[in-house]
């Protein structure tokens, strides 16, 4: 999903490995493999964002065209039109090629706009037919499965997968189909997402095609954490249900410890003093703080370890938000809150001084 930055090039890495007899010097097959793995077939991130914004505006126009222009009232027509637009999008993509010519860029933009319109109309039509929020989940699932491998645009793959996960979350929290078991289902949904995320992130054999799912899972986990941070009470008046953040706390703390171990190079590395300390700090954080804060820290660590700037940025941007929610929701006076804030800050600063004292941060500019 992102271009990575590092002080070393692949050439430096292979030289170091060959100097230490881990690989053969001048192994052409290995060099070809590295080049093949890094071939960037997609547009850079900023261009994908531009295409996405354009497609969003264009799809709004097309949806308005269908809704106001043709005065369609029956749901089946929306579904049929949705399918038609999606098929048109696939045709446009087929003729688009690599996007390097004017015609092909125009077709890529048109294709994405048509796909967004088609999917929106299809989901709208299905929801109107079945009159339940879960119909949206079903419709998005069908569309995602049907288009994921044939419509090879990572922005669409990400948005479709994220929409699917978000619709499940919203149905679980806002629907009344599972009243009485919201907490159980919500926690189960979180568990499944965390397991899938860990599997996708830690398994290097997973094809690049599935990276959008990795990011949609991360975004969905963030959405769940934001929901938990902002409210614990769900359901209708007289039928309120509480979702306690304890399970999410434990789950995210475990994920944070796994992340630290994985980034460090394996579970065996956790025996070293700095990493043991890091794991202890993670557990302590899990005890005293909120799920969102732990998730933000995990994202920053994963992002730094994988050199994926989007992950690091997500963590860095979400941390202040979760801290705000955490202290805002504390049921204590402003004075006590200030004490908690200063106390937490001093604890972290003490951690930093400990690292310096033990010479565990050997950077020149620290």
């Amino acid at each position, binding site marked *: 999903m992102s271009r990575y*930055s*590092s002080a*070393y*090039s*692949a*050439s*430096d*890495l*292979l*030289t170091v*490995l*060959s100097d230490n007899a*881990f*690989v053969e010097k*001048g192994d052409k097959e*290995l060099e070809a*493999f*590295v*080049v093949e793995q*890094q071939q960037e077939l997609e547009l*850079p991130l*900023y*261009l994908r*964002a531009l295409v996405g*914004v*354009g497609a969003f*505006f*264009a799809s709004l*126009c097309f949806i308005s*065209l269908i809704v*106001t*222009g*043709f005065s369609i009232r029956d749901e089946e027509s929306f579904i049929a039109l949705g399918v038609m637009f999606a098929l048109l999008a696939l045709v446009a993509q087929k003729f688009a090629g690599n996007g390097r010519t*004017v015609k092909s*860029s*125009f077709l890529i*933009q048109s294709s994405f706009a048509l796909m967004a319109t088609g999917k929106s109309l299809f989901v709208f039509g299905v929801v109107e037919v079945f009159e339940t929020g879960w119909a949206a989940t079903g419709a998005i699932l069908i569309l995602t499965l049907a288009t994921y491998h044939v419509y090879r645009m990572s922005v669409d793959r990400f948005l479709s997968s994220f929409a699917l996960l978000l619709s499940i979350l919203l149905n679980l929290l806002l629907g009344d189909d599972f009243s009485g078991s919201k907490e159980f289902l919500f926690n189960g949904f979180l568990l499944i997402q965390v397991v899938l995320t860990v599997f996708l992130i830690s*398994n*290097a*054999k997973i094809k690049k095609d599935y990276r959008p799912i990795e990011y949609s899972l991360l975004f969905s986990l963030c959405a769940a954490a934001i929901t938990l941070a902002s409210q614990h009470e769900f359901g209708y008046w007289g039928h309120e249900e509480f979702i306690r953040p304890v399970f999410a706390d434990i789950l995210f703390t475990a994920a944070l410890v796994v992340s630290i171990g994985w980034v460090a*190079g*394996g579970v065996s590395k956790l025996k070293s003093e*700095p990493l043991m300390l890091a794991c202890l700090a993670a557990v302590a954080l899990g005890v005293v703080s909120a799920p969102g804060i732990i998730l933000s820290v995990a994202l920053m660590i994963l992002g730094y370890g994988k*050199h994926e700037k989007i992950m690091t940025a997500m963590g860095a941007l979400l941390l*202040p938000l979760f*801290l705000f929610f955490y*202290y805002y929701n504390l049921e204590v006076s402003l*004075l006590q809150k*200030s004490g908690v804030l*200063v106390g*937490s*800050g*001093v604890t*972290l*600063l003490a951690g*930093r001084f400990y*690292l310096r004292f033990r010479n565990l941060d050997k*950077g020149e*500019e*620290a």
Partner: protein
Amino acid sequence: MEQTPDSPLAQIPANRRLVDELHAHGKISPEAKVYALDFLYPADQWGLWISRLFLAVGTALVLSGVVYFFAFNWAKIEPIIKLASLQLAMLLCLGGAYYYKLERISGQILLLSASVLTGVFMAVFGQIYQTGADAYQLFMMWSVLTFGWTVISNFAAQWVFWLAITNIFLVLWWDQAALPEPDMAGMIFFFVMLLNTVALVLREVYLNWKKAEWLDRRWVRLLIVLAVLVPATWPVVMLIFETVSDSFSMKLSAATGLVGLGGLYALYRFKVRDMWSLAAIALFLCIVLEAAAVRLLGEALQGAEIAMFLLMGLATIGIFSAAVIYLRRVIAIIEADHV
């Protein structure tokens, strides 16, 4: 394996994903994987990173706690104690910054803390003496008093912080003190754009003159570019949709906004060459063109919704496709120039 700087392997960054892929496909052994990861990410880099994270988040929490504490306005504490404790904290921060030196992150963060505490001190001063001063005066003094520290700070976050409080001062001053006639109200867009443009140009000139790693961060440039683009395009879009009266000030702000867009384009296309900034400029230009298309088609095809929405959709695709095509050409030119 001799690789020239332009060879494909020299262009590919080595990172964890590459090492994982090599290992997963059996190209390197588990021992080689561990060695490669240690080479790319030495343990002390992690320690340094975590140490800095602790310092930044810890300082932010302590400063937030201080703000909360004084917002509580505890009556039991004597005013002199409140003011003296804040001044003492500022002096400690400044002393710490002097001790650690401004080349180190510790010193820079302490100086930034002193800057934040300056604002808290003035707010508490106003709270105690009920000066009746407008909010813009607080931000003005805050901006003036911290300017010197900002100049010597060598710290991008300090500059961004100073620019933020100066922007707030400008907007509040316009609203609370300048009290412009309705005809001149739109000049605020021009002033905000001017302030941020000056900051952006100074940044680029400074970087061109002197290699300053602390300032040469993409996020800083992008943030200031956005701070120029928003006030540059906002009046244009408002004039297009006629949500405000077409006063002289709005016309002037819109006109200078378009000139500003052109200037930024020239800067990042020919002088500095930054694709993220160019993409941001292209996005805002697309929004302006989109607004113009909505207005023109809406007026020309009143009552013919089908044609209007169809043409709008096609125009949108056309505008954004043109932007993407153009940016791809620029990428190709830049890449060709570097070979």
